[in-house]
């Protein structure tokens, strides 16, 4: 499972972030301060998780034992980076609303 976790970690962070934002916006409809603040907190937490994953995958890519491990680490690293951008982008509506 560890390999799959490394490969999909960033995308899982994105999914958790998205559904948390959806839940916040649905439970607290409108653009109240509480809803926006909660959304920003969730976004920051997801960005932190992505940053940690990027660091972890970077190290794993550097110390990979063979082709498969290296490939999984590099793909996971790119996935975490993509997730970082997407999570950040997705947080903007809470800031701008």
């Amino acid at each position, binding site marked *: 499972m560890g*390999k799959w976790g490394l*490969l*999909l970690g960033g*995308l*899982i962070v*994105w*999914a958790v972030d*998205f*559904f948390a*934002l*959806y839940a*916040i*916006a*649905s*439970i607290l*409809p*409108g*653009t109240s301060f509480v*809803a*926006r603040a909660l*959304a920003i907190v969730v976004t920051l937490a997801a960005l932190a998780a992505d940053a940690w994953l990027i660091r972890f995958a970077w190290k794993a890519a550097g110390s990979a*034992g*063979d*082709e*498969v*491990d290296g*490939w*999984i680490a*590099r*793909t996971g690293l*790119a*996935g975490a980076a*993509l997730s970082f*951008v*997407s999570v950040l*982008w*997705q947080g*903007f*509506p*809470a800031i*701008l*609303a």
Partner: protein
Amino acid sequence: MTSETGFDPELYKRFPTREERPDSEVEELDRIWEAPRGWAFLTVVNNNYIGVFYIGAAFLFFLLAGVLALLIRTQLALPLNGILSQEIYNQVFTMHGTVMMFLFAVPMMEALGILLLPQMLAARDLPFPRLSAYAFWAYFTGGLFFFASIFFALAPNSGWFMYPPLSSKIYSPGINADLWLLGIGFIEIAAIAGAIELIVGVLKTRAPGMTLARMPIFAWALLVFAGMILIAFPAIILCTLLLELERALNWPFFDAMRGGDPMLWQHLFWFFGHPDVYIIFLPAAGLISMMVAALSRTELVGYHLIVLAILATAFISFGVWSHHMFTTGMPRLSIGFFSAASMAVSIPAGIQLFAWIATFAAGKPRYNTPTLFLIGALITFVIGGLTGVMLALVPFNWQVHDTHFIVAHFHYVLIGGAVFPMFAAFYYWMGMTSRRPLSERLGKWVFWLMFTGMQITFLPMHLTGLMGMPRRVWTYLPHTDWMATNMISTVGAFVLAAGVLLFLIDLARNFRFTVRHDAGNTYGGGTLEWLRAGSYSTRSIPVVRSRQPLWDDPDLRDDVDKGRYFLPFSATGNRETIITSPVRAEPQYLQILPGPSVWPMLSAIFTAGFFLLLTIQAYWPAVFSGVLVLPCLIRWLWDTDRPVASDHADVGGGIRLPTYSTGPGSHSWWAVVSLLVVIFMIWLMTVFSWFFLYGVHTYFWAEMGEPLWLIPILGGYGAAAGLVLLGRHLLARKDSTLWSPPTQFLLAAGALMFAFAADFIGWRSAGIDPEASSQAALVMTFLAQQGQLVAVSVIMALYVAVRNARGLITRPRNVTFDVVALFLLYTAGQGAASAALTRLFPGGF
């Protein structure tokens, strides 16, 4: 090199072996894998037959839906046209969309997977050949019956997304909507069966050495495609079930007067519907990636980024469903999140597009028919993608919602993203299943007619939409200025159809089905499907050392043909393939595959009969058909999971593998877990419905359930789980009696029945009336789901007991025993969670 399973990768160095192999081995393989003849041919299960049947059926539905499209365009060519009546027009556009989405696009991708995947992985077949046959026959018989409804003017007529209240009993009193709801729900079951087959196929039947980093992109795409089906399709199964229950039993899930809400349908439908677009696109993108590299005669640029893009598209596609609902008055912040996600999904799509363009640029492409179709696909898909980003912008979306702009957009996406790649694939892979390749000369005509026809049809349609013409209208008035663009679109549709007709002529002239004497590698591909193959796939299963093995090892084809790799013979005298590990594809065990059987086909026909007879309200024949499914399924399964004479078998190169495996290493375990994911998702969507309806109509909700009932309910489910675990423990103990393990399962089934009965009686004693409110209707839905699981659990426990009596439950571990244990445990867990949720929320906490 590290190992995933304990297998020593140094053993790969034994291959290719050098000793000569006797011809008798090939003769035996031919005999074992030969397809039945005469009428028995219908019972064939080999993927190279079922795959072709499946593709043929899906293409037939493409043609039928295409004819409906021509009728639509003819009707709209002129204002106040009267070619079709209003009612028939409604049926025609509903069936066009429904058939294209449900009977063509998704099944075609599954069909291509069933045909190509085992060959690309150099597996002898998919791991559950009979399941493939079942999926095909269920889809084909159900699809034909469903389509036939249009000849009786009984076809669905509420649009391919069947929005209530239009599709509710009050506005659609006939059986048209029932046909859609039961027909589509059933066809999705066939799709899920195929998806489970593909997931296990990709993860467990790859050739040794074909690690995740060396998998063909199409295999990656199919893995993600099938995973998405498991997550997305339960939503449509649930919403069709809920609407049918509302129509048949007056349970008000979508009736706002009794606490339901039509928006619930839209959420559930689009949670399936938008990912479905990517479910169609991703396998096609996988095909494009394979063909772009082969036709450019170079390695695919950005392999790992393309894999990432496929994975990212799958994830993000589940966060965009509400962009179909921007005009419904959703919370503003929520709209912002969905808009952002809808734009973000263009990042992975862009990664793939740039990788394909870079591959073309880096290689030396020849401008043959498949290349032309690929370039046409890229151009068309980019246009559709750009209008997609426009539609993600909320203010623009508001302006063009439900206009012909949307129709133009999604046809660009689907024709560019799936139909053109499919035609490219037909030309590219035809040499694998036909004695002759298709004609290059005719193919270029086919392409240019289809490409220009497509652009002429749909480019002006953007303008029609921007000028305000709504979708799904039967006709329009002359003074609206929509006539010119509509006429152009109609001319384009007939040009497109001429291209398809020419393709049929090419097909008739050149396609000659074969599994042995095929035309071969016409376009010089480098992946394993181009190894010479017979009914048993390749003579031996190679060790994979790169992503394009045929390019990197010129001797590979001959070595495989001469049996110098794994499994050059039948090790046990049965149909077999090698099961490998999910990450590194290390050989784990030898799987014995079932052969031809009539039972999957009969099971499929009777399952189809059950659902489709219900739609015409022939209740007793439907029940009779449903009852017949059970003996057919049991008879089908009875032949499987038999004790094997020898624990281990030589698979070539002096390597011996086990002939049996249980637990997470076994392919059956993966299949059952996949099935449980589907069941869990149906349940999770019901939980979503529970909270959604509570959130929008809180004032209808009350504390209805008595929490004290949880004591016997949770006690019963807890006891069932404990008994299952005890039974599994006892099976592994040498000193347990013959009957003790299955007895625990029978007792567990009894405990499940007790807990379910307590749940049901508890609600009955509370005087619950499912017609009175959506809350009560949802409680009954949870109970209905649980009742089905308990019924299946009881049948499974009895099945294990009977197999045990016949000495078919092997010890200390047994696959059937394991998978039944998983199912029973899940049933107990879901039952407990449903009971707790409905009794404790709202008010019980």
